[in-house]
């Protein structure tokens, strides 16, 4: 079929593309529901002199830890130690705190701020961690997130994800905006804006690029955009539809879904758009690829068995491997995302007339339903595997929600106006 002549689309649609310089919109608003089974009681004393800074540190740290659902804040009112020698442990034991955070800030010449933090174990009366950092005043939120990561890591044993970023699409009126924000919803920045749909953003493993699907040319095309430079390249722009990008863990390749050879099938392509190679070979729909963390296999959605289910197939280099079916409960299981430890995946399970977030353990095959809402979509694991970010709907509006991987804590992230959707959680910053 050779009819992609310009005359075939005689209706002219003007596309607006703003290459944006200004940080737009208010931050995402956050609401938290529920809490973990065992919450660590922690007291965070406002740091010395932080009230003189443009941005306080301890409020950001406290909000981060509370959002995780794993901490309970103990009020430090009336007590204000900033150095270990000033700490009277019995006072904190009386208030029920297990952990205590103290620290100080010092404004330096040239707009720099020195931040000093100590994490103390109240019961054992020992210092668990100390941390000193000098940052420009404009980066105090980032410093606070690093402190929250440190505390989270010391007290839970897991990596903190407070310094990570998320990407999502906001639809407001006829405008679609791909945005990147801090994990707490602050510092939202538009990456690209169009009057045609944008879907399926995914982070490169180094966090420097986003791949996404834009309909700006009247059909889905996969782009890779470098965040720092805003330069971008159409990596899959073949005849027909191009969509569902996924990065290989080494960042060298993408899996994409093309209708190039009929149907919707998964292909592998180098990140620069070269070396196209067919991966799946079925007569049905194969889509939504997600790489295993070791890069050896891909899980994906396929209707080859009559209904959409999750399958796994090894990357062998040969054109057609054997796909193993992973999901068996229900007639609609879609949108798989591999956990970073490779032990489980999250997906959307149709549960009666509801579409909910679920996880499945790859070893035991056990499925856990994590939500009870009506229309959940696009689940994305946090890099520490403890939280799943997804899109849902509240009162007819699209919002983002996050659920802990044990299903106990949920939080909602919404914007002032418009629908938020298609979330993707970025990698840990230390991998960058």
């Amino acid at each position, binding site marked *: 079929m050779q*009819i992609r002549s310009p005359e075939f689309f005689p209706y002219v649609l003007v596309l607006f593309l703003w290459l944006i310089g200004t940080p737009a919109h208010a931050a995402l608003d956050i609401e938290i529901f529920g809490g973990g089974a065992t919450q660590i009681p922690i007291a965070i004393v406002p740091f010395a002199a932080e009230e003189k800074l443009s941005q306080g540190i301890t409020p950001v740290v406290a909000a981060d830890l509370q959002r995780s659902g794993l901490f309970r804040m103990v009020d430090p009112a009336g007590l204000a130690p900033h150095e270990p020698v000033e700490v009277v442990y019995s006072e904190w034991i009386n208030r029920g705190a297990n952990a205590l955070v103290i620290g100080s800030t010092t404004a330096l010449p040239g707009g720099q701020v020195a931040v000093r933090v100590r994490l103390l174990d109240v019961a054992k009366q020992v210092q668990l961690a100390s941390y000193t950092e000098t940052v420009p005043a404009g980066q105090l939120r980032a410093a606070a997130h690093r402190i929250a990561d440190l505390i989270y890591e010391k007290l839970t044993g897991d990596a903190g994800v407070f310094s990570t970023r998320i990407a999502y699409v906001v639809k407001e009126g006829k405008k679609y905006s791909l945005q990147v924000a801090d994990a707490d919803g602050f510092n939202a920045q538009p990456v690209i804006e169009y009057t045609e*749909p944008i879907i399926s953003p995914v982070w490169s493993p180094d966090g420097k690029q986003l791949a996404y699907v834009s309909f700006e040319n009247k059909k889905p095309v996969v782009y890779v955009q470098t965040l720092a430079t805003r330069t971008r390249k159409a990596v899959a722009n073949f005849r027909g539809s191009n969509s569902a990008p996924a990065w290989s863990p080494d960042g060298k390749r993408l899996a994409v879904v093309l209708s190039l050879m009929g149907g919707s099938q998964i292909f592998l392509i180098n990140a620069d758009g070269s070396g196209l190679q067919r991966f799946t070979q079925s007569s049905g729909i194969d889509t939504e690829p997600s790489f295993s963390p070791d890069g050896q296999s891909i899980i994906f959605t396929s209707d080859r068995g009559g209904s959409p289910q999750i399958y796994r197939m090894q990357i062998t280099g040969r054109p057609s491997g054997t796909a193993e079916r992973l999901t068996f409960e229900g007639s609609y299981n879609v949108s798989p995302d591999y956990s970073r430890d490779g032990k489980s995946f999250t997906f959307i399970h149709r549960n009666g007339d509801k579409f909910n977030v679920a996880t499945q353990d790859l070893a035991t095959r056990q499925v856990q339903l994590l939500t009870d809402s009506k229309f959940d979509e696009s689940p994305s694991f946090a890099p520490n595997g403890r939280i799943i970010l997804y899109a849902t709907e509240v009162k007819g509006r699209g919002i983002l929600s996050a659920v802990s991987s044990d299903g106990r804590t949920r939080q909602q992230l919404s914007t002032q106006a418009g629908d938020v959707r298609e979330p993707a959680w970025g990698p840990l910053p230390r991998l960058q």
Partner: protein
Amino acid sequence: MKKIFGVLLISLLAACASQTTQPTPEVEDKSIGTQPGMGSGATTGEAAPSLNPLTDPNNILSKRSVYFDFDSYVVKDEYRSLVQAHAQYLRDNGNARVLLQGNADERGSREYNLALGQRRADAVKHAMTLSGAKESQVESVSLGEEKPRATGHDESSWAENRRTDIRYQGE
């Protein structure tokens, strides 16, 4: 027959270009190959010669949507005659081109719905080519759930959005 057709087409185009009497109801047509009235005499004898069969509300060709069940891309029997009529029109009008746009309702995965919309467009294309349309006359694309015609969040809106639209070149 084909040659005569071509000559006719050119003269019609010329007529159109000089803005004479050719009626072009509702549709602004700047393309070639789908001039109103072309197919009426040849394909549907009962239509008035001045009416465009593609837009004549009494002609089955004015019906342009094929609807599907949830998570299905099977063209239902009730749409067979509609698809066959368009296939026949394409067969009789070799210059006519259609774009088939597959759509899905908003529930479930956007990417799966994009693939589903593609299958819905492909299914109509397949039925059309089996009934005599040439492969080169039919292009199938998917809009997934991204361009809903009905914007409600209920079964009637979802049913409306599970469809393939038949759009003639120039429409």
